[in-house]
C-alpha cells in the first residue's frame, strides 16, 4: 500500500519584547531562577494582568507578513488546567478570536518549485514557567522566570506532506519571524519550538487518518527525524492490523523516537472562557497601516532582489536571504569588496564553516562584515591570494585585527615582482630535468596541464606568496622557450 502523510505544525515563537505579555518583569533568558518573576507572574492574590502592546505590534507584523486577516477585535481567553509551573491555574491565550487569521507562506521544494502552505491562525498567549526535576532529587523545583513570556502560536493547515516540507515550512516561518525582528529564533533556548501533528492515509484517499501530536521539538533536524519516525511508526501499526490512537507524544532525541505522553481520554478539559480581567483588543485600519509601514524587507523579496541585483544563483540567494542578520552581513561584505559572488562564497564558505564549528550565531561572529570585506578587497587587488586569505581569515577569527594589519604583521603580502618570481622559476626548472623533459616531449596542447607541478614548486619555494597569475605566465614563457 502507498501511504501519504498529512502534517500540520504548531510553532511557538517567543516574541522578543523586553517585558512580559501581562507584567513589567524582564523576559531576558538565563537569569537565576525566579529573579524575573513579579507578583503578577507569581499569581499572587489580587494581582491583575496589563497587556503589553508591543506584543500586539509584533503579532500584527507577522500577520501582515503572511498576508493574513488581522483580527480587528481579538479576545484573550483562559485555558484552565492545573500544573505547578502554571501559577494562575490557567494560561491566558486566544481561542475564539485570535489576532491573526487565515494567511499563507510559500515554501521552495527540492525540485525548485514552490508550494503554498496555509496558516490557519496565529494567536497571542503567555508561556508557562519551568519545572526543574534534576536539580532537587526526589522533589521538583519551579522556575517562573519564563512564566508570562509572550508567545505567538502559529498554526498551519494540514497542507504538509513530508518531513522535508515540514522543515522547509518551519525554516520559512523561522526566517520570517527573525527577519521581522519579532523573535530571536534561538531554538536551543526554546525561543522557537514546534509541535508536529502527523497522520497517514492511503494515497488517493481524501479522508484524514487519526493524528498524533508530537510536542516541543526544538531543532529543524529533530523536526525532520521526529516526523519520519512517526510516519514509519504509524505505517507499522496500521500494516500490523493496529489502529492509531489520538494522543500526545514526546520526541526523545537521544533514542530518535517518539513515545506516548497522554491519550485523548487523559486530556484536560480546558474550560476556555473569555478572560474577564482583560478588555478585548480593538484595532483599526490606521493602526494596521502604521505597523505595515514599519515592516522590514521580507525574505522572499530579499531573495528576489539578491538574484536581480547581485546576480546570485537561486540557491545562494535563498541561503543568504533567509536570515536577516546573515543577509545584512552579506550585503555589507559585498558592498565593501564590490564582488557579490566572491562575498557570497566567503560568507557561505569560510565564515559559515567557522560559525558552525564554533556554534556561533552570525550576530556574534568575531569577524565583522567590515573586516571580511577588507580582506576580500585584498584578494581583489592581488595583494594576497585566495589561499593566503584563508590563513588571514583564521587569524582574524582567533586574534582579531584588520586584513592589512595581519598581512603586514605576518609578511603575507603577495610577491608580484617579476624579477623575484623569474629567479624562483629558473631555480625550479634547473632542478627538474625529468619533468622538463616530459614537458618537452608532450604535445603542445597537453602541456598546459603539466604546469601544475612547476606551479606547486614555485609557490612552495615562495612560501605561497608569489602571485599565481604572474607565476603561470612566467613559467609558461620559460618552459615553452625550452621547447623550441
Amino acid at each position: 500500500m502507498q501511504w501519504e502523510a498529512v502534517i500540520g505544525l504548531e510553532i511557538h515563537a517567543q516574541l522578543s519584547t523586553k517585558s512580559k505579555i501581562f507584567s513589567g518583569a524582564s523576559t531576558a533568558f538565563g537569569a537565576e531562577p525566579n529573579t524575573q518573576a513579579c507578583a503578577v507572574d507569581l499569581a499572587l492574590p489580587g494581582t491583575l494582568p496589563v497587556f503589553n502592546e508591543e506584543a500586539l505590534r509584533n503579532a500584527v507584523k507577522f500577520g501582515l507578513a503572511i498576508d493574513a486577516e488581522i483580527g480587528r477585535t481579538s479576545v484573550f481567553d483562559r485555558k484552565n488546567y492545573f500544573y505547578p509551573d502554571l501559577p494562575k491555574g490557567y494560561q491566558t491565550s486566544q481561542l475564539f478570536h485570535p489576532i491573526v487569521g487565515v494567511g499563507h507562506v510559500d515554501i521552495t521544494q527540492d525540485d525548485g518549485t514552490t508550494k503554498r502552505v496555509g496558516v490557519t491562525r496565529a494567536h497571542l498567549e503567555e508561556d508557562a514557567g519551568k519545572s526543574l526535576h534534576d536539580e532537587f532529587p526526589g522533589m521538583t523545583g519551579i522556575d517562573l522566570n519564563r512564566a508570562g513570556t509572550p508567545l505567538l502560536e502559529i498554526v498551519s493547515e494540514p497542507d504538509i506532506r513530508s518531513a522535508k516540507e515540514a522543515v522547509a515550512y518551519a525554516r520559512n516561518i523561522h526566517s520570517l519571524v527573525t527577519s521581522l525582528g519579532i523573535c530571536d529564533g534561538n531554538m536551543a533556548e526554546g525561543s522557537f519550538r514546534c509541535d508536529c501533528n502527523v497522520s497517514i492515509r492511503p494515497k488517493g484517499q481524501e479522508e484524514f487518518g487519526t493524528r498524533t501530536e508530537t510536542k516541543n521539538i526544538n531543532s529543524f533536524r529533530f523536526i525532520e527525524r521526529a516526523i519520519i519516525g512517526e510516519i514509519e511508526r504509524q505505517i507499522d501499526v496500521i500494516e500490523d492490523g493496529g489502529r492509531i490512537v489520538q494522543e500526545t507524544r514526546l520526541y526523545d532525541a537521544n533514542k530518535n523516537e517518539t513515545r506516548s505522553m497522554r491519550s485523548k481520554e487523559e486530556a484536560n478539559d480546558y474550560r476556555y472562557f473569555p478572560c474577564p480581567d482583560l478588555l478585548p483588543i480593538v484595532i483599526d485600519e490606521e493602526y494596521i497601516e502604521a505597523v505595515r509601514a514599519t515592516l522590514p524587507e521580507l525574505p522572499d523579496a530579499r531573495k528576489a532582489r539578491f538574484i536581480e541585483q547581485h546576480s546570485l544563483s537561486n540557491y545562494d540567494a535563498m541561503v543568504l536571504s533567509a536570515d536577516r542578520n546573515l543577509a545584512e552581513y552579506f550585503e555589507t561584505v559585498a558592498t565593501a569588496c564590490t564582488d557579490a559572488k566572491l562575498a557570497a562564497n566567503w560568507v557561505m564558505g569560510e565564515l559559515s564553516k567557522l560559525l558552525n564549528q564554533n556554534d556561533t550565531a552570525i550576530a556574534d561572529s568575531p569577524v565583522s562584515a567590515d573586516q571580511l570585506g577588507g580582506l576580500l578587497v585584498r584578494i581583489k587587488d592581488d595583494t594576497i591570494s585566495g589561499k593566503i586569505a584563508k590563513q588571514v581569515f583564521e587569524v582574524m577569527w582567533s586574534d582579531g585585527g584588520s586584513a592589512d594589519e595581519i598581512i603586514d604583521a605576518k609578511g603575507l603580502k603577495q610577491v608580484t615582482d617579476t624579477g623575484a618570481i623569474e629567479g624562483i622559476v629558473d631555480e625550479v626548472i634547473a632542478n627538474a630535468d625529468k619533468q622538463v623533459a616530459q614537458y618537452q616531449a608532450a604535445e603542445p596542447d597537453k602541456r598546459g596541464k603539466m604546469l601544475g607541478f612547476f606551479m606547486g614548486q614555485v609557490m612552495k619555494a615562495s612560501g605561497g606568496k608569489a602571485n599565481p597569475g604572474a607565476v603561470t605566465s612566467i613559467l609558461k614563457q620559460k618552459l615553452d622557450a625550452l621547447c623550441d
Partner: protein
Amino acid sequence: MFDKTLAELASGLENGDFSSVELTQAYLDRIHAEDSKYNSYITVTDEIALSQAKAADEARAAGTAGPFTGLPVAQKDIFCTDGVRTSCASKMLDNFIAPYNATVVDKFNNAGAVMLGKTNMDEFAMGSSNESSFYGPSRNPWNTNCVPGGSSGGSAAAVAARLAPAATGTDTGGSIRQPAALCGITGLKPTYGRVSRFGMIAFASSLDQGGPMARTAEDAALMLNVMAGFDPRDSTSMQQAVPDFTADLTLPLKGLTIGLPKEYFPDDLSPAIALQVQNAVKEYEALGAAVKEVSLPNTALAIPAYYIIAPAEASSNLSRFDGVRYGYRCDEPVNLEDLYKRSRGEGFGPEVQRRIMVGTYALSEGFYDAYYKKAQQIRRLIKQDFVSVLNEVDVIMGPTTPHPAFKLGEKSSDPIAMYMEDIFTIALNLAGLPGMSVPCGQTNGLPVGLQIIGNYFAEQKLLNVAHQFQLATDWHKQTPDGI
C-alpha cells in the same frame, strides 16, 4: 466621639477638638473592649493605626493635611495590605501576607487615613450572611443572634457597632448593599470600573467592585473621593474623570423622577419591608420627586444567570490557590494530585467548594453554550432593561433585600434560600450599574434598606438623592440598643 460621622470627625480634627492619635486610640480601645460581641474584625492593626495617626497629626501641624487626613477607617480583609495578613476569611490564606497594597489601600494611605484593621467577611466574599468566614461569623449589632449580611458583613457590623466610622466593602452580587441594609448603614456599590480592583482578591472579576460603607451618604461621598479613579494596573478600570462626590449633595430633588420596578415588589415581599420602602418613596414625593411605575422584565433571570457567571469566573480565579507557592498546603502530600486535592479540599470551606464545582461544571466541554453563553446573553438583556428604564427616570428605587436580618444558621443549610436574599441586588452587578442602600425604616427592631439605582457613573446623583433623604429623615441616625 463614636457618634460622629466622618464629616464631623474631620471638622473636629481640623478645629483641634481632638488629635488623630486620640481619636484612633479611642477606637482601638473600643474595638478591643467590644468586638468580642460582634467579631467584626479579623485583624486589628494597632501599631500601624497609631503610627499613621501620629503622621496625620504631624501633617496637620505642618499645614499639609487634606480632607481625609487622620480619619480612621477599616479595610475589608479582601484588600491586600503590605505586611499585614490578608486572609479573605479563608483558611487558605490564613498565613498570607502580601508584599503590596491594593490600589484602594494605597489611596487611603496617600490621603492620610488611618487603618484600624481588617474586617470579617464571607470566605472569598462568597455568601450573604458572613457565616462562611474561617474566623467565625460576624454578628449583627442590632441583634447578635442575627447575621450582619454578607459578604462585607464585618465592615457593616463594625460601622453599625461604632467600631469604625467607616469601612471599605466589595460588592459582587450585593455584598456592600445587603449588609448595609441589614445593619442600618449606608453603602454604595460604584459603577463597575470606577474603583480599581488591583490588590482586591478576585471572586468574579467582571462583577466585583469595591465601594464605601459608612453612616451617611455624605461620608460615603468622602470615602469615594479617596477610592475612585483610573488605575493603570487594572485594565478594567475606567478612564473616567473623578468629580468631587460631595459637590452635588445639597442639590434639591424637585423634578427628580423615580422609577419603581413592579418586579421589585413581588407578592412574597415581606410586608414590613414593602411598607418601609413605600414610606420612603412618599418622603421623596414630599421632597418634590415624581414617581413612576416601571418594569425590569428579566429580573427573575438575574439569579440563575449570576449563579453561572460568578461561579464560572470564581472557579478559574481561585485556581491559583493550589498549595504550590503560598497559602495553605496540606501535610505530607504523597504526589502532585494529592497536594492539589487535599490543599484545596482542606483550605477552602464548603460554600467556596460548592461554587468552584458549579463554575467548573458550567464551563465544561459540551455545557458552555447551554450555561455560560446563555447566562451572558441574559446578562445583556438585563442590562438593556436597565438602560431603557434609566432613559425614562433618574433613579430606580426598591427594597435592598426581601427580608430583614435573619437568624444565624437559619439559611446556612439551604443555599438556594441564601442566594434568594440577593434577588434585588444581583442584577446591578450583571449590568455594571451603581447602586446604594440607605436605612429607611425598621421592623421588629431590625433595619430596612432602601436601594437606589442610578445610571452609569451617576454616583453623584445617587449620593445627592440619598443625602437629601437623610436630611429629611433620621433612620441613619438610629443606634442599636446597648451602643
